[in-house]
């Protein structure tokens, strides 16, 4: 029987798979992990989440906008860009460079484009005469004509570009006209990356320190316990903020990478794992198979790594799951405070942007809503999984 088969057949695994909600959570997590993996392989080009792909603050699900907004969109989208390109010396090159996300200038001779631009500008002038665009039927008709005219400047999309363009606008755009969906998707990669790296490092540190403290006792135990009681007496978030702030203000090259975030997280997150692994080791070292290993003359390292640590693997698994969530949530908070992720999207940054731009005040909930929903589902799924893991490994729980 292979190791994997043994694990899947174990009592704990069967208990876990009997829990329907846990299975759903597992599937969701697998989905997130898959997306993160694909994003790491670069399936999403940077322009998808970093560039302007449409008008600012447009609504998602292609919901219709009010007349003012429609006017704003038609006016700003391609019209201005094409107009400016046409004024340049190297018209051909300039026109070729014009784009808005996946949209490009229609392949028409510059003269024709010029006339479309002029006609559009004429329509725009007429529209400006109206005080309000909403209620007036004349204005409505004029607006539709204006939209159609400006649309003639745009090359029709097909295939993958058509798909990407619509996907980018599916959940609307932020204040800078960037795709909310793609930014939220890309944040999965950032979140999972920070979560996995932090959880791995912290479980490793925690398990090593905890088992060494429990097994050797004496001064080793004294030092480790002193370390974690000291660290855990500082409020977690305060420490995170201090470390992240120190990096941000130090002006070192690392300040724009994720390094400060990793350091801040790894400094504190190992404590929980360390504490439970130490407790388990204190219990395990009294077990007769550990006594037998010592009687056989095995050295401390062999006893620790072959006979004690493998038997704490369920604790490591549960703690990995808990830490992953802890790191993702803290990342969002740090980013919201402007001390976390920089130079790439993150749910925390999206929420921060939404707040700074007054989205919420003006009733534009697409950005904050999307970021929160993406995070909520992941955190909820992991919380359910952690609980299910704890139940599965709890012998008293059937």
């Amino acid at each position: 029987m292979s190791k994997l088969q043994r694990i899947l057949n174990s009592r704990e695994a069967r208990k876990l798979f009997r829990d329907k909600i846990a299975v759903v959570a597992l599937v969701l997590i697998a989905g997130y992990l898959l997306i993160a993996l694909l994003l790491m392989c670069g399936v999403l080009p940077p322009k998808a989440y970093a560039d302007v792909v449409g008008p600012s603050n447009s609504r998602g699900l292609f919901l219709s906008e009010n007349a003012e907004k429609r006017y704003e969109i038609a006016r700003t989208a391609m019209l201005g860009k094409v107009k400016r390109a046409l004024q340049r010396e190297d018209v051909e090159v300039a026109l070729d460079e014009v784009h808005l996300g996946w949209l490009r200038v229609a392949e028409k001779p510059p003269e024709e484009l010029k006339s479309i631009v002029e006609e559009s500008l004429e329509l725009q002038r007429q529209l400006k005469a109206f005080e309000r665009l909403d209620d007036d039927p004349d204005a409505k008709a004029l607006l539709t004509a204006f939209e159609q005219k400006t649309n003639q400047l745009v090359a029709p999309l097909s295939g993958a570009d058509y798909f990407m363009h619509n996907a980018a606008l599916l959940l609307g755009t932020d204040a800078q006209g960037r795709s909310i969906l793609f930014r939220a998707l890309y944040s999965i990669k950032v979140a999972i990356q920070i979560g996995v790296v932090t959880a791995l490092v912290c479980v490793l540190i925690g398990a090593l320190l905890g088992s060494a403290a429990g097994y050797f006792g004496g001064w080793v135990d004294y030092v480790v316990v002193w370390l974690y009681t000291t660290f855990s007496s500082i409020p977690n978030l305060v420490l995170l903020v201090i470390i992240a702030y120190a990096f941000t203000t130090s002006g070192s090259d690392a300040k724009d990478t994720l390094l400060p975030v990793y350091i801040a997280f790894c400094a504190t997150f190992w404590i929980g794992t360390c504490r439970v692994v130490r407790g388990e080791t204190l219990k395990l070292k009294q077990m007769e198979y550990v006594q037998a290993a010592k009687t056989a003359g095995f050295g401390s390292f062999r006893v620790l790594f072959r006979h004690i640590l493998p038997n704490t693997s369920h604790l490591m698994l549960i703690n990995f799951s808990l830490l992953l969530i802890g790191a993702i949530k803290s990342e969002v908070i740090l980013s919201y405070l402007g001390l976390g992720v920089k130079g790439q999207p993150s749910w925390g940054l999206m929420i921060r942007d939404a707040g700074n731009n007054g989205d919420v005040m003006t009733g534009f909930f697409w950005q904050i809503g999307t970021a929160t929903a993406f995070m909520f589902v992941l955190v909820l799924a992991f919380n359910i999984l952690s609980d299910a893991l704890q139940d599965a490994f709890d012998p008293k729980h059937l």
Partner: protein
Amino acid sequence: MALLEVENLVKHFPVRGGLMNRVIKQVHAVNGVSFSVDKGEIVGIVGESGCGKSTLGKLIVRLLEATAGAVKFDGHDITHSSPSALLPFRRRMQMIFQDPHASLNPRMTVGAAVREVLAFHQIAARGELNTKLDELFTQVGVNTDSKEKYPHEFSGGQKQRVGIARALAVNPEFIIADEPVSALDVSIQAQVLNVLMDLKAEFNLTMLFISHDLKVIDHFCDRMLVMYLGFVVEEMPCQDIHADALHPYTRALLGANPVSDPDKRSELTVLEGEVPSPYNPPQGCPFATRCDLVTDQCRQEMPPLVELDAGHRVACWEVNKTPEPITAAEV
């Protein structure tokens, strides 16, 4: 020739508590135990649970550090040897543990557990590990086809056999069996005891056999030590313990283990009274609180272990006074 000599062995466990996690009291688990075991002998240690039998065993194999006293193996004092100095002795003495369910690493196949010992001590070359393993498993009666199975797939009796195989892997001369069958079903106990008997002859083993069951000790051992609250109260050969046992505690234990002979069942004495706390053992005889023969002297002074017959030592003021062994009528 004595293979093992234990001299005045003492083990106190500090109990921590209070504000600063200070040592607030000491558990007196083993209180100055002395005895020796000759080559080829099986010596039993009997006593109620908590009287320090396991602690004594662990002190001898250096799983615990003695508070005072000495353990000598084959003439070498190993009480304070360093781990490296101890390694050759690890190969010569092994321990079989009480709880077969806890004595195997759940994350290792039973074969891997024994192979690890074989490889560590270079008992067999890398290519011959499995041959040697099969040989051991056959000797203890475990199916060689199940060597890649994990402990939870085995019954208690099978696990205990694997535990015995692991202890025998280093080819030891001396084995401490700490209640090797008391966690097993009665029907399995006899089988495992028979395996131990066979192996004892085959490997020419010397054994220290720990049990709380006088019947098993009587059946299995050449000589026995009776322990009470960390003290040895009687040491005697196991020829006819029903007739020879002198200490009131041993006699009470015999009563607690009724035998099939109806004449002997009449000796039944019932143990009454409190077992003194091991935290602060009484000043006098530890058994005084439950003894029928108790006198003022017993409560004041600890009786010394006095040799009455060859190899028969008793620690009891009353028994040592009486020239004749106590018989059923006198009790």
